[in-house]
């Protein structure tokens, strides 16, 4: 995996719910630590864009989708447990 690959994330949140805010905070912290300058985060509020949540099949909030680099991955929750998140996103090697 190229070290210069861009990580593209989309985080589905439910308005200003506590767990959504936590997830956003955890994600930004993680990206800052692990992927400085090579990440993009898009935030989708399912309350504002429910059709999009429906189309994307998002039923639980918060949900983090990593769609680049492939393979695409989904992580549900506040992202408070870092280890499984890193593992799912394929960042474990970098962290080590």
């Amino acid at each position, binding site marked *: 995996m190229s070290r210069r690959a861009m990580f593209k994330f989309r985080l589905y949140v439910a308005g200003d719910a506590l767990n959504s805010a936590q997830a956003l905070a955890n994600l930004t912290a993680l990206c800052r630590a692990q992927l400085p300058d090579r990440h993009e985060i898009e935030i989708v509020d399912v309350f504002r864009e*429910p059709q999009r949540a*429906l189309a994307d099949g998002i039923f639980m*909030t918060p949900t983090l989708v990593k769609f680049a680099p492939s393979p695409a991955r989904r*992580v549900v929750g506040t992202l408070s447990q870092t280890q499984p998140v890193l593992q799912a996103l394929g960042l474990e090697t970098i962290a080590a």
Partner: protein
Amino acid sequence: MKSVRSPLVTTPPKAPTGVAGFDEITGGGLPRGRTTLLVGGPGSGKTVLALQFIAHGARACKEPGIFVAFEETSKRIVANAESFGWKLPELRRKKLFFMDAQPLPDLVRSGDFDLGGMLAALEVKTREMGAKRIVFDALDVVLALLPDLAAERREIYRLHAWLLAHELTGIVTLKSGGDETNSISQQPFGFMQFMVDCAVILNHSVVLGVSQRSLRVQKYRGSGFDENESAFLIGNSGFEVAVAHTLSRVDVKVSNERVSSGIARLDTMLGGGYYRGASVLITGFSGTAKTTLSGAFAEAACRRGERTMFVCFDTNSTEVIRNLLSVGIHLDRYVKSGCLRMISARAITGSAETYLVRIKALAQEHGARCVVIDPVSAWSKSGNDLSTQSVADRLIDWSKGEGTTLVCTSLLDEMSGQGEGGSQLQISALVDTWIHLNYLIQAGERNRGLSIVKSRGTTHSNQVRELILSDAGVTLADTYTAGGEVLMGTLRWEKERAERALHEAAEVAAKLKRVKLDAEEAELEVRLKSLQTELVAKQVEKALLVRTTQSDQGELSRGRTQMKELRGADAAIPVRKTSPP
């Protein structure tokens, strides 16, 4: 006046489910605008019931619905339900929406989450479609992903509050213990049972190898309901819940019309035949001609042009037709004309409930006015012991309600040894007419006897008759009682012959006597005539005699006078001398 209506007003509005029987148990359906919990083990029919509820709403009640599938994909659910004929693909265009919410297998969890996203999406969809009904199928799947019990409770509350706020009539299905080994804690579900307004428990058990399904309404806030367990079946058109007699059906039209039993002498014994719409039970050991008797009934019904259904459990229907032909009962032509429908029910396997439902469905399809079930005791095979009683109740209930004349045969257990024991189904108490057939073994012969145990509302003979089967048909013959014993078969024939001989002898003797008397009479008459003739002769003779005597005397006196004149003498003296004599 208001006080009269108030109890009705408090009953919550209901959303009909379209499930036969279920709406009767609940008095109209599920609570409208409330949440119903549907709990059941694996394969207990949760999804089918929920889907039927949604489909019925969309099709018949103008209530569009949303089906949220957490476990199975909507594609598979629709495909599986295709055989029920609910036309889901057609409904899907406008009135039915399936939401696939199966958690992906590679889903990673990290920390707490909630169902806010789903509810937001559903909210849009609900508004867009004007949905009135919603189903969350297998909610436990998504609850299991939540990190702790508190979170599970929180999400259940969230869902419940959302449903209430949107006034949707909801069904939430959950798995119950069963043989599930996954460690879903029972607690949140137990808690959910307290929270919802209505809870229905589905059961699927196997008793001695026979599958038995049952359903029970555990609670229903603000409404009365049938609290007992009711058997149900997943049939060709979906759920069917078996319910006994509901109050609305008590008053059934009673007919005074009589229908022939197919045997003229039996009709006479019954005072004219069975009542139309009556239930008739024919009991007897195997080989006592139960099938023949019911076949005769079926033939008579077809001859009257009534559509008839003959359900045989023991033998194949073609065998029944062939066998009945040997006693002069021709069923084949009615099968050909479509008047008679023969069903080999050995092909149907399952619980007594299944049999009843199938028979009801088939009879309705055929438009049968007369139904024969041969033998109904096949239902009480192992595994059905508990349910058959109520099934038999409902069978009779149903036939009465439909005005169908029902003839059931019931095989008695030969080992039970009791001459006339009731059938195992205990339906003998329910039926209107009970005919018992038995064997009488006597003088090296086995003969069939028929007697009427009971017949409600008809005068009936108390006599045991001998049932005679021959290729000319079925007839009943009088039996003889001699020295307290009933004579049948050869003994009866001998007795009949002896009586006939006696009668003939008596007749001959009488004839002989008459002839003899005739002869005597004739003889007397002849004698009378000859005597009369003789009498006449004698009278003539007598008359003659009188006449001659008179003339003689005249002559004599005349002669004497002449002589005196001739002598011309002293008349007096010579006369004295000459006539001393």
